[in-house]
């Protein structure tokens, strides 16, 4: 297995002859993808082949008196140690497998920098990462050595996210100087091949996590974006960032006061902001779960992260009131992030079928901070309003970028800055204006700082954060945790039932909650509630404005007047949810 860097055109660098690193690891092999690999693999499939979005550009310093040969040896040892760095993703007839090559070679570029080798290496790393990896044929690592006056000073790297996640990068960073120094490190005890075998053991792990997902899928809003779409901006997805030491100080103070972690404070804050803008008291976020709390996984280089479902009932009280329960929901999510994605997707479809709407969980939060916390925050007393106000003078917000395609409607994330709240918000402008992302950042800081000194009722979060809640036109109504457009739902039902007539009614479900009933005239192909539900679900796939009726009433003929459906003779009635092979209509 081989790899080679692309031609670098970085200013201030002179290319020297490239070198070849040969490696031979302890073993090779082929196995199914681990659940963590499946997560990233699915994300890469969502993009076009060759898209470099999931590439990681990275730079490692070379300190001391190591010469070029020592650095190249260290690169070889690194690839030999970690099987993930010599893994290809190959079709296996049923899907995709991981294939670990025992041996191979990597071409490493060598460059002489005119000055500032680390800066030059960063630019070189970005260049190396600008081209997508051929996952089936190429090593998931490209690298080049940057020298100054003939002495190696930095290693520029481009890595596939399929090979390493943030946790693994930190592991490699810790090993790198020791490998350069020629130290003989103990072999890793756990690799993705071992993990793949564990995940297929009997009984398989992950049953508790699957129960957690089932519960969440039943209680989450079917979408946080159940409101009218808007004309998207170009490019459609925009991302803003913020650097706010004050937000970090405030979050620390709130965490200490309420006995929770800063990660939970930020999660609940994101839920509160999103809930305030979208009109939801219950918020559903997918948290990126590192899955590193088990010692074996803590020592494995390779992708382990999976998405975890976090449903937070914000309640009717204050932001502070929501922190304790929100913390427990957050912890439960992090604890239940290791699962078989195929089983969760099946549960997802099953629950969508039962609830009568595709369940859209395209709101994410990724806390990437090292060990999930800040370190070295400025010594400012959060209880001193003047000091906190002064610190807010250092807050900076900035535009990060705009993208044509992202698999998220909103994506909150921290950055790795240790001494400040580095925070990012990405929005899909087909649902929220791009400026909302920027306002949410300022709103996050305001919410946290305000909550240190006063109670912030959740129904005032939008006002406090300076956010404009979405407006739903007449005809939208709340049914359980979901907002539904009744005119659009009725129009969809009529289209599905055409050429026969149909109508939608909001009726009392018996427990005080409104339920939707669909009335229609039965005709061939639409002569049972199950057949109608199948057709409605197919037509509603991907929509966040409609909800399939909870009950279908099939009549032999339409009523004399539109108000007369309830009194019509009935051929059949029911919820149409009886399990059938047709439950795969969503085709997820």
């Amino acid at each position, binding site marked *: 297995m081989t790899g080679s860097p692309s031609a670098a055109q970085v200013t201030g660098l002179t290319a020297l002859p490239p070198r070849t690193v040969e490696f031979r690891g302890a073993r090779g092999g082929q196995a199914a993808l681990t659940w963590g690999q499946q997560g990233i693999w699915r994300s890469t499939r969502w993009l076009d082949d060759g898209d470099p979005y999931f590439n990681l550009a990275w730079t490692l310093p070379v300190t001391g008196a190591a010469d070029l040969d020592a650095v190249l040896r260290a690169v070889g040892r690194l690839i030999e140690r970690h099987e993930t760095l010599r893994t290809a993703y190959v079709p296996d007839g049923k899907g995709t497998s991981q294939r670990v090559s025992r041996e191979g070679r990597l071409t490493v570029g060598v460059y002489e920098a005119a000055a500032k080798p680390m800066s030059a290496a960063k630019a070189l790393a970005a260049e190396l990462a600008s081209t997508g990896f051929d996952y089936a044929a190429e090593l998931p690592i490209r690298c080049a050595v940057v020298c100054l006056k003939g002495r190696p000073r930095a290693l520029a790297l481009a890595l596939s996210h399929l090979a390493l996640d943030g946790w693994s990068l930190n592991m490699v960073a810790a090993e790198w100087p020791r490998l350069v120094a020629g130290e003989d490190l103990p072999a890793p005890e756990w690799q993705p091949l071992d993990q793949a075998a564990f995940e297929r053991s009997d009984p398989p792990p992950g049953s508790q996590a699957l129960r957690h997902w089932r519960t969440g899928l039943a209680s989450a809003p079917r979408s946080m974006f159940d409101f009218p779409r808007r004309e998207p901006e170009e490019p459609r997805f925009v991302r803003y960032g913020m650097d706010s030491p004050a937000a970090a100080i405030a979050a620390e103070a709130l965490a200490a006061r309420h006995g929770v*972690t800063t990660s*939970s404070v930020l999660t609940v804050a994101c839920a509160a902001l999103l809930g305030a803008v979208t009109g939801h008291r219950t918020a559903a976020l997918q948290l990126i779960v590192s899955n590193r709390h088990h010692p074996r996984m803590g020592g494995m280089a390779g992708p382990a992260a999976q998405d975890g479902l976090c449903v937070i009932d914000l309640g009717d009280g204050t932001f502070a009131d929501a922190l304790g329960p929100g913390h427990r929901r957050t912890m439960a999510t992090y604890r239940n992030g290791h699962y078989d994605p195929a089983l969760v997707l099946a549960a997802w479809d099953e629950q969508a079928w039962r609830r009568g709407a595709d369940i859209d969980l395209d709101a994410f939060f990724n806390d990437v901070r090292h060990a999930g916390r800040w370190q070295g925050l400025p010594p400012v007393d959060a209880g001193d309003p003047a000091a906190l106000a002064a610190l807010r003078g250092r807050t900076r917000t900035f535009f990060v970028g705009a993208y044509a395609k992202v698999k998220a409607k909103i994506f909150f994330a921290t950055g790795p800055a240790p001494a400040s709240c580095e925070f990012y918000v990405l929005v899909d402008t087909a649902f929220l204006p791009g400026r909302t992302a920027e306002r949410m950042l300022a709103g996050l800081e305001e919410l946290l700082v305000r909550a240190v000194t006063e109670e912030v009722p959740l129904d005032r979060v939008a006002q406090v954060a300076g956010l404009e809640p979405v407006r739903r036109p007449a005809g939208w109504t709340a049914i359980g945790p979901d907002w539904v457009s009744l005119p659009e739902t009725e129009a969809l039902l009529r289209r599905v039932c055409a050429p026969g007539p149909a109508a939608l009614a909001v009726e009392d479900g018996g427990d005080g909650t409104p339920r939707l009933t669909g009335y229609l005239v039965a005709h061939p192909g639409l002569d049972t509630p199950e057949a109608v539900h199948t057709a409605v679900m197919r037509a509603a796939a991907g929509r966040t404005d409609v909800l399939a009726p909870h009950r279908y009433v099939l009549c032999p003929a339409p009523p004399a007047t539109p108000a007369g459906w309830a009194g019509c003779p009935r051929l059949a009635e029911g919820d149409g949810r009886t399990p059938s092979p047709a439950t795969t209509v969503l085709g997820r």
Partner: protein
Amino acid sequence: MLRERVAELVAKASGGELAAADVLAASCGLPALGLNSLAYLRLIDLVETEFDCDVDLDGGYLDTLDGLVEHIAGQLK
């Protein structure tokens, strides 16, 4: 005795950042001591393995050493 053992598990879960004696002496909750989310998850794994019990994350007892000890004692009965 149980309290001391749980404090040792807290120290172990923290990756050595906290000493069991500090955990025992602290008057504040575990997050205020610096126990982060990852350490919490390690702690729950350790407690469940050591005491063969289920730690329900929806309980508020996770916030303090004494709350956790009380919960484990209740499970052991």
